[in-house]
């Protein structure tokens, strides 16, 4: 991989975009990487647009600013596509990963001619199927790992299972559901 990978997350307050960025930082850290995971704090409320960031590298990360030319963009909520310039600065040899069921014609029209790869995933369906509730961040996390190739899939799954066991020690029913959501998402992310 390149020495420094930069990822920008777009979501709405309460959907877990910040948590997804922290989980990705954790997973990459556990494979020996240098990481940064940070949200852009604003006057956020439930439902308001929020941004979070990741830097992942094989060497120490010294830069401390937001990310303006990301390698990857993850959009957790497709209703943001018309109001937020999600492809701003996104590298053309990078990719955007969107949680959506909208068709490619619509997506291409709202992405303002973005020339890089566009991936979609139905995180709602996966989340409802595996967890019975709408938590888009777990499937989105797996989709970003799949597309960006930052962490080998097997290592990622094993590591996340360990994290879930720790995190949900008192709610074991969530462990299998979340692992299942990751596995489904790794297979169901589609390139347009």
């Amino acid at each position, binding site marked *: 991989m390149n020495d420094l990978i930069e990822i920008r997350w777009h979501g709405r307050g309460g959907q877990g975009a910040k948590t997804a960025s*922290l989980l990705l*930082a*954790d997973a990459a*850290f556990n494979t020996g990487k*240098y*990481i*940064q*995971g*940070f*949200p852009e*704090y604003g006057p956020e409320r439930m439902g308001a647009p929020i941004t979070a960031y990741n830097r992942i590298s094989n060497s*120490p*990360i*010294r*830069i*401390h*600013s*937001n990310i*303006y030319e990301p390698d990857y963009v993850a959009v957790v909520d497709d209703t943001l596509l018309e109001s937020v310039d999600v492809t701003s600065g996104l590298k053309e040899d990078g990719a955007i990963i969107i949680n959506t069921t909208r068709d490619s014609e619509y997506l291409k029209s709202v992405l303002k001619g973005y020339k890089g790869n566009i991936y979609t995933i139905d995180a709602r369906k996966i989340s409802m199927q595996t967890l019975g509730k709408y938590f888009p961040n777990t499937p989105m996390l797996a989709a970003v790992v799949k597309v960006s190739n930052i962490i080998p899939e097997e290592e990622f799954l094993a590591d996340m299972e360990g994290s879930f066991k720790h995190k949900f020690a008192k709610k074991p029913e969530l462990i299998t559901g979340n692992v299942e959501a990751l596995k489904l998402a790794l297979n169901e992310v589609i390139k347009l």
Partner: protein
Amino acid sequence: MSIRERLSGNEASAIAMKQINPDVVAAFPITPSTEIPQYFSTFVSNGTVDTEFVAVESEHSAMSACIGAEAAGARAMTATSSNGLSLMWEMIYIASSTRLPIVMSLVNRAVSGPLNIHNDHSDAMGVRDAGWIMLFSENNQEAYDNLIMAHRIAEHKDVLLPLMVCQDGFITSHSIENIELLEDEKVKEFVGKYTPEHYLLNRDEPIAVGPMDLQAYLFEHKFAQAQAMRNAKKVILDVAADFEKMTGRKYSFFEEYKLDDAELVLVCMNSTAGTSKVVVDELRERGIKAGLLKIRVYRPFPAEEIAKALSNAKAIAVLDKADSLNAVGGALFSDVTSAMFVNNINIPTVNYIYGIGGRDTTTKDIHSVYSDLQEIVNTNKVNNPYRYLGVRGNN
């Protein structure tokens, strides 16, 4: 063996406090430092530390409680930001002039108003003359390391001054990054036990703390305080040397990054130093002799050492994350240029006020500063040394 971890700057600071295990922590929550007392209070509840945690009703009381605890002979710590520090202001001076080595974690944030919760250095700059030792930290690692070194400096018998460890609010306080932690026993051994010479709870030596101090003595006491601040310089270096022996991590008054042969030099503090290192590397690849001087110890101000380190530059930019609103320039700029003047160094130097209220400072911004320095060298002319970096509406 150090412990490889990933923590936010706030988590790192709370863990340093846990390992230090002070006698008293008194704090009132304020963004973005809230998490420090929050995490620390869980260590208290879990019995991980045996600290007396005082959940006060205001920052004025937080500092007052720290003063009371230190005067009694205990080791006391607190954390705050911005207007929290403003509310402490009266007691900040009492802590230092009463020579109580309280340690504070200051997570830098703009002082209102209008209301802004984001980072700049206006809180710290407001107390720069209050007699506290002030250390600045580029990232979570330095915030942690500076706290581990803090008590050894503050409590030294030649110093006895309170000390604050600064880091950038949100930018490092809320960013998860890699960090190397020390084992609990190593920290305990390094920090050592606090054994004050004079304290209120010593029944063999009844004393008064903070009584009237009028014309007959305050002048001499102020002189002793000033002497203590001068003494702190040697102690800071001695403690850093011991810390390096334990960790391999080297600290001094400031960090010189590719400064030896640098012609274009930037001076700044806290997280922007990291961003600037990236830019220095990019410029060096293009054959431009760029360098960085990152201030760690702002009080005492290492004037002579800074002047010497800057003496080979051709143009210098000093970045201030707070404006002094004096129509001349920021506080760090005044300190650096005065250090150069009294040490007979005359190099074109400009000031940039930057990053106010959390305005993001990018590599692009830092590149523009180095281009301006190149322009100064090329034309041998400085137009307006007092500048605002990237501000809108300055046409």
